[in-house]
């Protein structure tokens, strides 16, 4: 994979909602390039459009205008059926509330995206065990999702996100429902996976301390990018300052 060719590229991406008859610009001409292997945090206050941006990047929502390339493909031009397939093959998701299926075991939860992609169950199970070992939850493999703690559930969710070898992992407030210790553990795990597997990761957080885990931070305000460290951590304080300033 060419490190200089963006894995995700947004060109003038906009998303408008009609809420109670009022037109809301959730994203307003956002242009952004994310390169392979990057670990990007998107920060911004509530309502800044960071979740909408993540949903658009995850093809869970369609932008109102603009172009979105993922892995070289213009996703705004692909049909609904293809989008589902594309999402399953190329993207991995980690949600704030883990979204494990409570009645399924840890193993079953992890292999679920693979089964949806019609992959062979035995191969999936083998791979899931490796992933569960990597995230440190192999000892709970046969436990039901509902019996795990928040941190444990999120670890399972990370393993699940990786089962289909995605090109990008998208995490929406991955520590939003966790205590500080679990948060640190999960963020550490995401960093580790990014380092080890070199999988591009984008996560959204409203917590500046969590955002600092990103090797690159993009700040969003009113649907616009107001700061981007562009991989240089020296810029982080400046970006965050900008964000705080614009908050006022």
């Amino acid at each position: 994979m060419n490190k200089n060719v963006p894995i995700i590229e947004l060109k003038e991406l906009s998303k408008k909602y009609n809420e109670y008859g009022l037109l809301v610009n959730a994203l307003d001409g956002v242009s952004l390039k994310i390169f392979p292997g990057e670990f990007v945090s998107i920060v911004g206050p509530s309502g800044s459009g960071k979740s909408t941006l993540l949903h658009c990047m995850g093809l869970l929502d369609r932008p109102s205008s603009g172009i979105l390339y993922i892995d070289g493909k213009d996703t705004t031009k692909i049909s609904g059926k293809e989008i589902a397939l594309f999402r399953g093959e190329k993207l991995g998701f980690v949600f704030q509330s883990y979204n494990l299926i409570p009645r399924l075991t840890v193993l079953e939860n992890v292999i679920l995206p693979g089964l949806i992609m019609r992959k062979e169950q035995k191969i999936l199970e083998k791979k899931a065990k490796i992933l569960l070992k990597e995230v440190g939850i192999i000892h709970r493999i046969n436990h039901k999702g509902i019996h795990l703690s928040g941190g444990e559930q999120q670890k399972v969710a990370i393993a699940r996100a990786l089962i289909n070898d995605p090109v990008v992992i998208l995490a929406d407030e991955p520590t939003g429902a966790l205590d500080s210790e679990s948060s640190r553990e999960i963020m550490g795990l995401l960093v580790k996976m990014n380092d080890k597997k070199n999988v591009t990761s984008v996560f959204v957080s409203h917590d500046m301390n969590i955002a600092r885990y990103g090797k690159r931070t993009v700040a969003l305000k009113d649907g616009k990018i107001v700061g981007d460290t562009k991989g240089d951590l020296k810029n982080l304080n400046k970006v965050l300052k900008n964000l705080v300033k614009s908050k006022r």
Partner: protein
Amino acid sequence: MGVSSILALGELKDHKRIYTIIVLVIALTMTSFMLENAYLNYMMQVVDDTTKLVTSDAAIVDKNSNIRDLYGTELELKNAGEIVRRIEKNLPNYKATIRVTAQGTYGLGTVGEVVDGCTIQGIDPKKDNSISGIANKIVKGRFFEDDDPILRGHTPLYIEIKGPGNLPDFTYGTGEKLLGDEKPYPIIVGASAAKIHPSVDIGKTFSITLSVSSRETSYASIMVKVIGLYESGTPTLDALIWFMHADSLREIKRYGEVTGKDWYIPGIGTFRGYNPIVIDRNRGDVVIVNAPEPIHSLNPLGYADYVKEEVKNVVPFLKIYSWHDFLIYIAGSMQDVITIMLWGSIIVTLFLCGAAIKYVMDSIIMRKTREIGSLKAFGARDRIVFRIFLYQGLIIGFIAGLLGILFSLIVMYLVNWYGLSVEFISGTQLKVGFIINWLSILIALVLPVSLSVLAAALPAKKASRLSPVEALRKGELSL
């Protein structure tokens, strides 16, 4: 197993309590359907067996005869043989035979016995369509045999008395006791009649007074000997319908070339006694028609109407009564009403079950929106989500149908094992039985499956159409 079926099974397991109740309600509805249907089939079979002894699939009578006349007072069909030939020529696979009929009275003048009536069906033991029906139902004695004394070679001794004033002419004939060596006519009677009449039993000889002309006061008293008792399953009809050889009745009713001398006695009337007769087998009172078996018996009543119409097209100048007409005549439209009510109650119950399934699934979908959103995020296409809920409906319906069939089979087995029977007319017991046909099994399986699939399809469609982001967002809200 596909991901949809794994998740569908999981959902069923998660909601096993409510789904078990729904499955049981549907299963019990299907049990009731199966039992009522099988019992109706059995009763239909019982009544059908007896009814068809008289009418078969259709009965052709003179245009001035009515349905009541099928009990033995039809007007004569002089060209009955021609009608038979026409039916068999124009309607391939249809069989037609001539019946000669009469109404009889017995017990007259017997000490300690009530006078009773019966309808005598004169059958051709070799050709009559219902022959196997009668022959197989003999419970004591035997069926007609070739060396039975069917014919005397002469008519009974008749006297015709001119009716004075407005009174009709009166004809009375007798064949009994005037010639000492006369053998009685063989007759097969209903077993239920033998139970209540001591003189009616195998080997017993007694006299019957027959009404030999339906629209005239014309009677003949003849001697009969009981050679067999039959039981069709409907004792009332057995007591009523007896069988003689058609030729015996032709002889008694003078259906043939009668020769011999008449004596006129002034002031009394005309004696036409023991006239030699060559019976004419083309003459009869009714032509009964047997139609080929229908391909399916989903609508036997509709088929009866169809047969009637077919026959009507061949003999438009005569009156046709279908087996169903006769069934309604003897049983009223009770059978039809029960069938309609049965279907009505089943449809209402199933509709309610369908509504319950839809309601339960709607509420599940509302609670599982986030799960649906996650599945979509993992690449699940609409049809995968659709199938999760559709399979639940399919499984519920299938299990309910199977259980319904199983429950009904158990009940039927227990009833048969116990030998349940109900009190019937003439001191007889009517056994409670069941006849299951493949069609009702198919209905008991297909109906709940279609219903629950249909009920599940609506919420399934709704779930599958949820956009992933909307589902995830709604899920967050419902937390």
